[in-house]
């Protein structure tokens, strides 16, 4: 390997600074959340304690954190499953041009670029004017899908653009029905990408704020609860909450990435033996 040019070191420094910029603040609040009971929102640390984490478990101090966490978690799972199923079906549909596919595609793009507050406002208005109650599991669920589905679908486009159609042709030549081809050939091949779609579905829902603002109803999701806290909580308890939810997100991301990795390894081990022959 030849010597690295000077530009490498310059760019590597820029990259490191970027990572510091990206993660620095999060690490800072993680440290500050262990602030002693007398400590404030910034350094210096006045002792080290779990005081603010303990506060999170006392309902009166911070409101209904655990209830809203539960709702966000369930909603995240609902959105995740729906996003995966609908995106795969949509991705399969878009592989062939059908009447109206262009219009549908532009709707997907619109869904991606429309300011979130418009979805919130529009869905909220529809529900209130038709006398329905907004609820996180109905109107909130639907509003979040308008954000997660375009991401899921774009990933599926990327996947199918790279998909080798000869696998399907081989299956069909051997007499597999359309459903069998999808079930036993297409789905197993795209499975790791589906985990990616699921990751997007869950985390985007779990962190979504603007689209649920007017559509969640009287029971808050976690981001709405945190948003409420930013206006009236001036103690490090909000850092403790931030640290906990970020840690939770990191665990979720870790689980997803680990399963992609495991799946790819398994595939490398047991995968194709084509060309090695049994003869």
């Amino acid at each position, binding site marked *: 390997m030849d010597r690295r040019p000077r530009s490498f070191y310059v760019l590597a420094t820029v990259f490191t600074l970027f990572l510091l910029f990206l993660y620095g603040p999060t690490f*800072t609040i993680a440290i500050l959340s262990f602030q002693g009971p007398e400590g404030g929102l910034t350094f210096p640390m006045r002792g080290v304690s779990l005081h603010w984490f303990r506060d999170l478990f006392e309902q009166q101090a911070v409101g209904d954190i655990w209830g809203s966490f539960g709702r966000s978690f369930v909603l995240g799972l609902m959105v995740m499953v729906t996003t995966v199923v609908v995106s795969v079906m949509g991705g399969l549909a878009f592989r*062939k041009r059908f009447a109206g596919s262009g219009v549908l595609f532009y*709707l997907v793009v619109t869904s991606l670029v429309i300011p979130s507050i418009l979805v919130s406002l529009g869905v909220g208005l529809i529900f209130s004017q038709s006398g329905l109650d907004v609820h996180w599991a109905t109107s909130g669920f639907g509003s979040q899908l308008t954000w997660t589905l375009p991401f899921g679908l774009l990933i599926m486009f990327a996947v199918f653009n790279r998909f080798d159609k000869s696998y399907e042709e081989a299956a069909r030549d051997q007499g597999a029905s359309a459903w069998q081809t999808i079930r036993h050939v297409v789905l197993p091949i795209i499975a790791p990408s589906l985990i990616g779609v699921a990751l997007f579905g869950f*985390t985007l829902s779990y962190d979504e704020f603007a689209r649920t603002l007017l559509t969640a109803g009287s029971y808050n999701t976690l*981001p709405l609860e945190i948003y409420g806290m930013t206006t009236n909580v001036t103690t490090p308890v909000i850092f403790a909450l931030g640290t906990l939810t970020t840690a939770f997100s990191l665990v979720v991301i870790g689980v997803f990435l680990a399963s992609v990795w495991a799946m790819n390894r398994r595939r490398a081990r047991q995968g194709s033996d084509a060309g090695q022959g049994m003869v």
Partner: protein
Amino acid sequence: MTALSKNRRLSGSRPASLLAQLVTGRTKNRHLMGWLLASPLALVLLVFLVLPIVMIVIVSFWGATEFSIYPAFQWDNYQFLLTSPVTYKVFLNTFKYAVLTWAFTLTIGFTVAYFLAFHVRSLTWQIALFLLCTIPFWTSNIIRMISWIPFLGRNGIANSTLMSMGVIDEPLDWLLYSDFSVILAFVHLYTLFMVVPIFNTMMRIDRSLIEAAYDSGATGWQTLTNVIIPLCKPGIMIGSIFVVTLVMGDFITVRFMSGSQSANVGRLISNDIGLLQYPSAAATAVILLITVLMVIGILLRFVDIRKEL
């Protein structure tokens, strides 16, 4: 004899007609199949995207009292909006945020993507560092905003560091709750949206093109401006679409990071919503949507999204 020739004629024509039938049959089948598979997607978008937009457009013509809204067809909301100097100031401010954020995220995002794609040599390292850049995208934006407070406050890390270094004598007030902190938060939140698509297009550039440029005597800088940047244009455009629309539609970052001291269009809408002035909020929303779609329309002229994924 006649029977035979008739037979032959039949058998001659049959495959063709059969083929035609098969083809037409399959075309119909194809459209049906496409819609069956796309129907859940279409349904969700219809109910939670198209109908809400229609509803907003309708309500933007309604009237409002202090406590309720009533159906009407009046242009009052638009008239008020388009004749108020506040509207133009706020829209101008929104564009200012969008352009500044776009410039910073593009510069930083391009540099980071360039380093990852052309200077990191092993694929494993590329993937690992790329993931490191994208992980914050999957965590909470609100928390990431809050985490700037200990840095930028009057007694925050930035001020105390600068003061102990002797650069300044008293704390800077404009670090938090100012345009500076708003842009900083936007750049912090949205640079990933530039890094990912630009990195994606860079990875697909044929490396022999770059070698060819060097072999023809181009300097590193010339290769960058004449070969790499033009080939990255689709990625740059997709990243720009994300950043511009996210910033233009934002209301929470501006509210939080400016300490409610600056306004953008999103805040105008959310303030009206807070006051239950839904028709006025809807009219502002319609204008915002038209503006955003026009910007996107211009950007989309430069790129075919589906081809680039």
